[in-house]
């Protein structure tokens, strides 16, 4: 790994120093001077985290909202989102192969751009994931109510939030008390979900282009013009927030030089394609205003349109699985994000304590679960989604900046297995696009997002001003 890198310095207000030690990385383990850390996640595990986190929102929550804002051109919004995600996924892949550690984006930025940027991103990522998880949970609530309606129990929309809260608390408790097979379960759910979607979208596409059944509803592609396509892209960007979560488990991935780029780029390409086809199928079934009227669970009506009751049931079932897997994967990422900042003394070390009984990080999971429940209770789907996107986009933009900063003056330890093609254009575009999408968000989301960033910067100034992380691998 080259010469010994700069070591982390300084203490926080509690007198804790960053726990940074020299390590060497092999394909199968990370070796520190007193222990080895086994790498146990394969490519399929990485893809399952990426796809599992992303797919819940794009297909099962957004089609109605997006079509209402942009018409059939919402497909272009999703495609635009995928391009932005790819422009960030490539630089993130390079950084992840150079620093295959827990913490993902936070880690790259704190090492590439210094402690202030790192602290703001690391703590904002915590809140970004909390907002995203609350958003997935509210979506889950809608699907749970619809599932009950499909089986003949009409409980009404008043139960959406209580159900979301119940399951949010349930996932948190489940993660604390620990199921060793959580990851395998996640893989299975993602595989089942992909099968349902490919079958449904395949049938729907054939129908929509008129190969089978009646031909599609003719409608102008972009009835509201081009501008809403971009604002909608800003809204639905939440559907792409999962790829960077792959980097939060970079420290546990086998053969990281190969698997990390494949998992990040691959999951963006797979879900991007599915999203675009979903919007095409949905807007072919109904006019966009009708879709918008169906709300969060518009896809259920699309399923009913193509395949009757069976189609509707397949979609509500898929929606339950998808929003559940997104929420659960995000809770896990949140706890890893908290661990990463606490390890570097930006939060009290006790935030990453593990309990002896279950071997799980109960404090970090609690710090994830508590705020998630508060936000879920608000039930503001669009605001939750946009704030989550805002905070993630800041991180994505800074990931690109960090890549450029590191490349301009490559430290000895910087030796990525994967180098981004098209440097410096790709990271430059990635940064511009990430920051650019923020400009198209609703003012309320921007204010909340900026408020959170200022708060995290304030925390850094109060708590950990003396801590130096730049270049401390």
């Amino acid at each position: 790994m080259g010469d010994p890198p700069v070591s982390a310095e300084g203490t926080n207000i509690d007198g804790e120093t960053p726990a940074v030690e020299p390590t060497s990385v092999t394909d199968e383990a990370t070796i520190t001077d007193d222990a080895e850390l086994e790498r146990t996640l394969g490519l399929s595990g990485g893809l399952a985290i990426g796809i599992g986190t992303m797919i819940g929102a794009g297909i099962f929550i957004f089609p109605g909202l997006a079509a209402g804002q942009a018409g059939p051109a919402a497909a272009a919004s999703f495609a635009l989102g995928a391009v932005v995600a790819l422009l960030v996924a490539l630089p993130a892949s390079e950084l992840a192969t150079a620093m295959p550690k827990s913490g993902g984006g936070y880690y790259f930025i704190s090492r590439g751009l210094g402690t202030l940027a790192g602290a703001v991103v690391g703590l904002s990522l915590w809140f970004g994931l909390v907002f995203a998880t609350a958003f997935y949970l509210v979506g889950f609530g809608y699907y749970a109510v619809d599932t009950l309606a499909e089986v003949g129990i009409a409980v009404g929309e008043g139960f959406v939030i209580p159900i979301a809260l119940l399951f949010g608390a349930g996932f948190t408790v489940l993660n604390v008390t620990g199921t060793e097979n959580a990851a395998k379960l996640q893989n299975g759910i993602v595989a089942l979900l992909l099968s349902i979607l490919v079958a449904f979208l395949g049938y729907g596409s054939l129908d929509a282009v008129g190969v089978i059944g009646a031909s599609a509803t003719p409608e102008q592609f972009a009835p509201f013009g081009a501008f809403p396509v971009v604002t909608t892209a800003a809204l639905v960007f939440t559907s792409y927030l999962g790829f960077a979560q792959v980097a939060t488990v970079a420290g546990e991935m086998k053969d990281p030089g190969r698997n990390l780029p494949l998992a990040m780029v691959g999951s963006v390409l797979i879900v991007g394609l599915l999203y675009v086809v979903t919007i095409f199928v949905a807007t072919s079934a109904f006019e966009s205003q009708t879709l918008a009227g169906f709300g969060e669970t518009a896809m259920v009506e699309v399923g009913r349109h193509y395949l009757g009751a069976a189609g509707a049931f397949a979609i509500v079932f898929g929606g339950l699985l998808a929003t559940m897997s997104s929420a659960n994967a995000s809770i896990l990422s949140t706890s890893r994000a908290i661990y990463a900042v606490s390890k570097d003394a930006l939060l009290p070390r006790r935030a990453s304590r593990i309990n002896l009984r279950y071997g799980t990080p109960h404090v970090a999971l609690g710090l994830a679960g508590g705020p998630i429940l508060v936000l879920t209770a608000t039930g503001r789907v669009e605001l939750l989604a946009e704030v989550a996107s805002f905070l993630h986009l800041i991180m994505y933009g800074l990931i690109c900046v960090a890549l450029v900063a590191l490349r301009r003056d490559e430290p000895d330890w910087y030796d990525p297995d994967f180098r981004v093609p098209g440097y410096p254009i790709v990271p430059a575009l990635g940064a511009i696009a990430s920051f650019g999408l923020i400009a198209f968000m609703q003012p309320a989301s921007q204010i909340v997002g900026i408020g959170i960033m200022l708060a995290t910067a304030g925390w850094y100034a109060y708590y950990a001003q003396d801590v130096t992380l730049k270049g401390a691998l």
Partner: protein
Amino acid sequence: MTTQDDRNTTMTRVLVPLAILEGESVSAGLTTLLEPMNVTVLGYHVLPEQTPPDQARLQYGDRATDALADIATEFGSADVPAEYRLVFTHNRKRTIDRVATETAADAYAIRGATGPVERLLVALTGDVAVDRICAFVSALVAGREIDVTLFLATDHEPTGRELLDRAAAAISDHAVAVRTELAVDEPPFDALLDAAIDHDAIVMGERAPSLRSIVFGDDAERVAAGSVGPVLVVRTDAEDAKSTADRSAQTAAADVESAGDRDAPDDQ
């Protein structure tokens, strides 16, 4: 490829995996049994998926290292402790396999409760060539007061008898006393556990993962659980596994393997 003679002259290495933070340690009997061997103590800690291994290392690393260093002196001496490694992992089996390969261990131990080992049961099962098991046992018991019982479960008596006799001949130069025990047409797993009752420890061959081992657990783990005593599992090495597979059509080794494959005890 090393010859039989080379194997006997080079020290044999045994990996001893221990769930170090769960307070696992080794019985005095196993420590004594492994005295002639090169021992690597593998302290591991298995974490649920939601916990990054590094997070556990940060919290428990020092405590685990202290405990491991103590155990390492039990295997070697206070001056020259045995080698040890500490691994935080999500997957115990993968960790044992990786470290065993990296240290070129010939066998790994499943700890168990035992006093001094006076009688050793050697099961000629699994995917490991009988020659390799015999070489390991010879190195283990050489010059010591340990009686060896060679055990084989088969449904074809003549070839089984022949294999046992050949193995007994190979070991007899090194062991004080060698007995053979052949179980014909009995469920191999139960027969092995029955035979284990009046023995202090078991040596057996590793077996490739199968559907059955995924459902009921690893063969060796089940034998260890059923017999209570320590189990030493002789690993296949890549070349042996290949040559065994090549020969398996016509030799008795094939009988041993297939006899084992047909049993499906589910007492776990």
